[in-house]
């Protein structure tokens, strides 16, 4: 039971990091970013590259990787998404193309083999009679700290207020002088940084290979559908629900069944409550 509680918390916190970034971009900029999983992969590979080739300390490499991916998110918004905004399917298509390009670039640059990223905390810690790797507990702590900081930023700063205003009414926000494009770029940067942080934190104990962005992308999408597109609160609740449901299934039934959990959740949500748990029903 303790194992389910602990490991469920680990996976839920990673899902929350991924889903909040994904839903933030959708809720504020109305952008369906299918390259979100690629930011996750780039965070992990960036850390790997800087710790192995440049021999940078892990903390420095991880911080740099997150900042570089955030900058990439901003550039992507400015160069690829902004010119296509308002043209229907063009934005999801261009982000999908970016995801494929990044995956192929990682494949060509690093090969298809698994890569090792060292742990921030190598020690194993006993919690409630369960030996848990320090890295997993670190992941939980950092994830919720980052999400708390994000909450403070959005609710207590001027730029955060601009983000909130844009998520509620774009036109009204423009009328009061909020620089829309700049806020969209900021949100994209934050979203990319959150995904990269998830990649950096999980790389030491999960898989690092070129296709690693796909499953997190699917999970983030599933969580956002269950929680309600554009709802940060919904994403966090759905991340906890899915994280714990998957862990429960893995422990009590079989690991082979875990991937079905998110699909079943999406299916059930779309049938029973299409707007998601906290989504706003629109006509």
């Amino acid at each position, binding site marked *: 039971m303790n194992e389910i509680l602990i*490991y469920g918390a680990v996976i839920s916190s990673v899902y929350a990091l991924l889903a909040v970034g994904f839903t933030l971009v959708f809720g504020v900029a109305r952008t369906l970013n299918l390259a979100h999983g690629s930011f996750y992969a780039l965070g992990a590979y960036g850390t790997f590259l800087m710790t192995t080739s440049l021999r940078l300390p892990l903390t420095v490499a991880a911080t740099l990787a997150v900042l570089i991916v955030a900058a990439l998110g901003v550039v992507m918004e400015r160069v690829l998404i902004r010119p296509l905004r308002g043209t229907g399917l063009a934005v999801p298509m261009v982000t999908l193309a970016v995801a494929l390009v990044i995956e192929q670039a990682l494949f060509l640059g690093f090969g298809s083999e*698994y890569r090792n990223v060292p*742990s921030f905390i*190598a020690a194993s810690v006993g919690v409630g009679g369960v030996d848990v790797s320090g890295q997993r507990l670190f992941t939980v702590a950092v994830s919720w700290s980052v999400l708390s900081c994000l909450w403070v930023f959005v609710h207590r700063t001027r730029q955060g207020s601009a983000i909130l205003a844009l998520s509620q009414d774009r036109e009204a926000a423009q009328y009061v002088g909020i620089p829309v494009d700049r806020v969209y770029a900021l949100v994209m940067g934050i979203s990319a940084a959150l995904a990269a942080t998830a990649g950096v934190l999980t790389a030491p104990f*999960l*898989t690092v290979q070129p296709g690693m962005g796909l*499953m997190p992308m699917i999970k983030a999408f599933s969580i956002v559908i269950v929680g309600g597109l554009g709802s940060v609160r919904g994403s966090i609740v759905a991340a906890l629900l899915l994280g714990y449901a998957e862990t429960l299934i*893995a*422990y009590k039934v079989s690991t*082979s069944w875990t991937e079905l959990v998110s699909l079943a959740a999406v299916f059930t949500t779309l049938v029973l409550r299409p707007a998601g748990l906290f989504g706003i029903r629109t006509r």
Partner: protein
Amino acid sequence: MFKRLVRLLRLPIILLAIVLAIPMAIGSVAAQTSTAIRIGVPTAIQLRVGRDTVDAVRMAIEEINADGGVIGRQLEMVVADETENPEQGISAVRKLTTDEKVDVLIGGYASGVVLAEMPHTAQAQTIYLGVGAASPSIAAKVKSDYANFKYFFRVSPVNSTHLAEGLVAFVSGNVAVNLKYARVAIVGENAKWAQELVPTLKKGIADAGLSLRMTELFDPQTSDFSPLFSKARESGAQLMLVLLSHASSDTFVKQWYDARVPLMIGGIDTKAQDADFYERVGGKAIGEFTTASAVRAPVTPKTIAFWDAFVKRYGRAPVYTAPGAYDATYLYASAVQRAHGTSADVVIPQLEKTDYVGVMGRIAFDDAHDVRAGPDYVSVRFTQWQDDGARVIVWPRALQTGNLIVPPWMRP
């Protein structure tokens, strides 16, 4: 405006077309008129197993060519990436047999891919010497439909049934005797070779008097193994027998080490055979044992010489596909020499008569064109990752270079 653009670009486009067409035409003519014996290598070139296949075939070709070639002809190699995807594998063998018109194929890695390729190589009537896939179904096809599938021979590894028997022999003859671990759990990826191996493994475990506490096959895409470790621990097992080839061994081993799972691990783990595996996982493979077709030990007079030459040439130790690919090239050359030709009809009977002492051991084929396994032929060997990344041969006894150890947190 548009017409002007077309006028401007016309000449560069024509020149580009000519530049591209000339090498293609030359290549095509060369492929048709070359007198060299062409060896096609379909393999997963992004993986170490694939790169080692290519490098070992290249090494053998250079040595044979330096000795004057075969029946007065030089050997040359053409590589095609089959990845781990059956569709890509079919494209690769079609390219090699139809476009490149190779005389023989040496390669293959994933059993599912090789099984998908076989009908196409049979249709092309091209001999295929497998060096990477372990599924018994591959050789079973030869036995059940010889006329169609006689073109396939498995040079390495020994099939997964033999691997299972070898694993049971090692566990009952060494692990259970020296470490007193007799309660085992089988944990492996849900892939064809593993599915086929499990029944033999279960039977062997029962026959050897060991206690099987749990069997679970997981999706090869699984990235979090904590639930599996928990179940294995709760089952009362002392040893987790792993069956890993396509799944992430790196992640599996790292999570096992990080959680200090109180069970020893080992079995058939393809990626743990990589020379850099210990370093790649930050030393967390300590205590893991795995099958090892490629070992630096005096298995035959050729084994250490091959190992050292490979390391000198490529700067890394070979994985299991390398000795297989090297031996396959030599035994094909020998069969062609005896047949005085490269036609499949004359080479196949010669390959069937193979009795060749290679790098892996004494190689001969059974009536399903499967490499014979056992003490007199190719035996299943085990190495263990020990302190400071040393890879110690722990089975068979005749080649043993050290004793088994347990992971640090399980030491008394």
